[in-house]
């Protein structure tokens, strides 16, 4: 697996945990333990996302323009183009 993919998977894992907590908090909005975990994962996601975007380009269209935004790979592309 390329370095890019490894970092993307670490980010996705952290985002998944954050999202799970977010969904859970919709039906348990006062669960303090879940709220604290959510805060931890927010920090982790922001750090990994920053690291990824700095190295491999924007994940959000609000953060990149032109060639930066358009660079491959797109999410459905199966081929790895970096080492």
């Amino acid at each position, binding site marked *: 697996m390329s370095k890019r993919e490894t970092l993307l998977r670490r980010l*996705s894992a952290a985002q998944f945990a954050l999202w799970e907590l977010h969904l859970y908090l*919709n*039906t348990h909005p006062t669960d303090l333990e879940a709220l604290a975990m959510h805060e931890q994962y927010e920090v982790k996601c922001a750090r990994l996302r920053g690291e990824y975007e700095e190295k491999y380009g924007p*994940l*959000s269209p609000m953060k990149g323009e032109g060639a930066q935004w358009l660079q491959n790979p797109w*999410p459905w592309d*199966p081929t790895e183009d970096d080492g």
Partner: protein
Amino acid sequence: MWQYEKKLQYPVKIKNPNPKLAQIIITQYGGPDGELGASLRYLSQRFAMPWAELKGLLTDIGTEELGHLEMIGAIVYQLTRNLSMEQIKAGGFDAYFVDHTTGVYPSSAAGVPFTAAYLQSKGDVLTDLHENLAAEQKARTTYDNILRFVDDPDVADPIKFLREREIVHYQRFGEGLRLATDRLDSKNFYAFNPSFDKK
């Protein structure tokens, strides 16, 4: 509004094409219990929800389903790359191919185009939540059935992830239903429709 994120919720990386499997899996793109119907169902039902927890739940799960639609599209796309005419014929992909080449089109495994008749938005909290609980189970069964045909781990891995999500969403909708009934008349949950009747 929505903002795109240029990544999949869970990685899809399939090495070997398999048009037969693509034709089965596409049912979760545009079939009766697929991800397109799921997202439209939840995102449409939101407007009739009287309570914030339920507005949040439907917004978030409806949004996640759009991410799942993208994952299914990626699976179908990767399973139908670089096909020879021989592979298309041998895989029984000719009927799909003649209408769509290898473009991803929302249809069921049997080739029936997507229809909004697959979903309901009834404007009644209890009815809609029960529809959603059933929908999550129907999607879970479909993923179980898909897995009966899959022996490629590259395909099974993201399909298993999506199957798990149906179970988690079912759990959250169950909690949503409890939050709803807690706010209704415990002797008659159907005394009035909180999405419509003023009380």
